[in-house]
């Protein structure tokens, strides 16, 4: 387990928004794993991909370099780490709340072991649990497409993984 000291560099990195769902930061999503800085302004950032093929990773890397450079860090290194594998369990409660407010149903906090493919999902618009899955794969790899039977609106659901 990484000990997260709240350095200034961490605070800057943590504020970088997710390029696909900009209401949440990479810290909210649990993508940001570690930030270390030394006395001469060099920063090393570790991030982990949500999905193996997540196309947002390059954009996040560029945003991290840009934001940290703007704050005066002269040398920024961004490393992709694969182990341990990212899980939606790392999403913060604040991140889940922001997603729901934005209209994306957050992933269910799950019991260890089983991926709950068939749990009911609450509509982020009206709060009804009477919803159905329209497609297992949505606008991005991490989301599925749902329809609310109560208010008839479609919505995205962040899949538990």
């Amino acid at each position, binding site marked *: 387990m990484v000990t997260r000291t709240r350095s200034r560099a961490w605070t800057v990195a943590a504020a970088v928004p997710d390029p696909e769902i900009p209401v949440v930061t990479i810290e909210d999503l649990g993508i940001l794993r570690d930030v270390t800085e030394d006395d001469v302004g060099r920063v090393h950032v570790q991030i982990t*991909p949500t*999905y*193996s*093929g*997540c*196309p947002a990773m390059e954009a996040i890397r560029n945003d991290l370099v840009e934001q940290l450079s703007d704050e005066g860090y002269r040398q920024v290194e961004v490393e992709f780490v*694969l*182990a*341990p*594998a*990212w*899980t939606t369990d790392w999403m913060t409660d604040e991140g889940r709340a922001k997603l729901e407010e934005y209209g994306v149903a957050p992933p269910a906090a799950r019991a260890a072991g089983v*991926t709950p*493919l068939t749990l009911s999902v609450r509509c982020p618009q009206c709060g009804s649990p009477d919803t159905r899955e*329209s*497609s*297992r*794969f*949505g*606008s*991005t*790899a991490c989301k599925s*497409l749902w329809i609310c039977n109560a208010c008839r609106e479609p919505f995205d659901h962040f*899949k538990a*993984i």
Partner: protein
Amino acid sequence: MSSPHPTAHVDYLLAVADDALVNAQRLGWWISRAPQLEEDVALANIGLDQLGQARALLAHAGQVEGAGRSEDDLAYLRDERDFRNVHLVEREQTDFGVAMARLLMVAAWQSHLYAALRGSTDATLAAVAAKAVKEVAYHLDHAGRWVVRLGDGTEESHLRMQAALDAEWPHLEELFDGSFLDPALVADGVAVDPATLREPVLSTILAVVEEATLAAPRVRPAVGGGRTGRHTEQMGYLLAEMQHLTRSHPGATW
């Protein structure tokens, strides 16, 4: 115990990577051609997962090889004889039933393979597998639903789904053939002997086949050879399309 030949480790990583890479390339063909818009999106996302797994594995293979080849070099600058994927993933799939039958087989195979590789003594391979196993669970579920829906659908869809299964089934056995593999790699805990996955993979597939009211085809296995670089005629066309841009414009970037 003899230690594995240095290239054996690279070849094994390429086998796992190339299955995912070539599968991704074939899945990409469906974008704009699937029976409904949601399916375009689904197959694009599944292809993207496969591509991501392939990239991580190719990058790792390049590092183990130690000759300075990047993931791009390995994907775009190898010739046909140097690809290690099975025939199952490389053949054309312009029939949606065939695409779903194949995805069911590939996803069932990868589910059990990646689950086993989470315990690989190659730490990077284990990490890639731990991530990928959760992704292919969705692929398996998706393909399974279509196979059941079409198999247990109308008379017409049943016949076509059965025909699709019959067409893909002969290529299943190649996945379980470990003759290309250096036994020392298995002994060292880097690789998994594919033969040990045969029973669990078949049982996963057969459960879906049964629910879909289809019959398990009784067919002779096709001649394989993909793991040692002997491919079908269609592989050349696939590589021509996949590698064309990089080879025509060396060093080009977006």
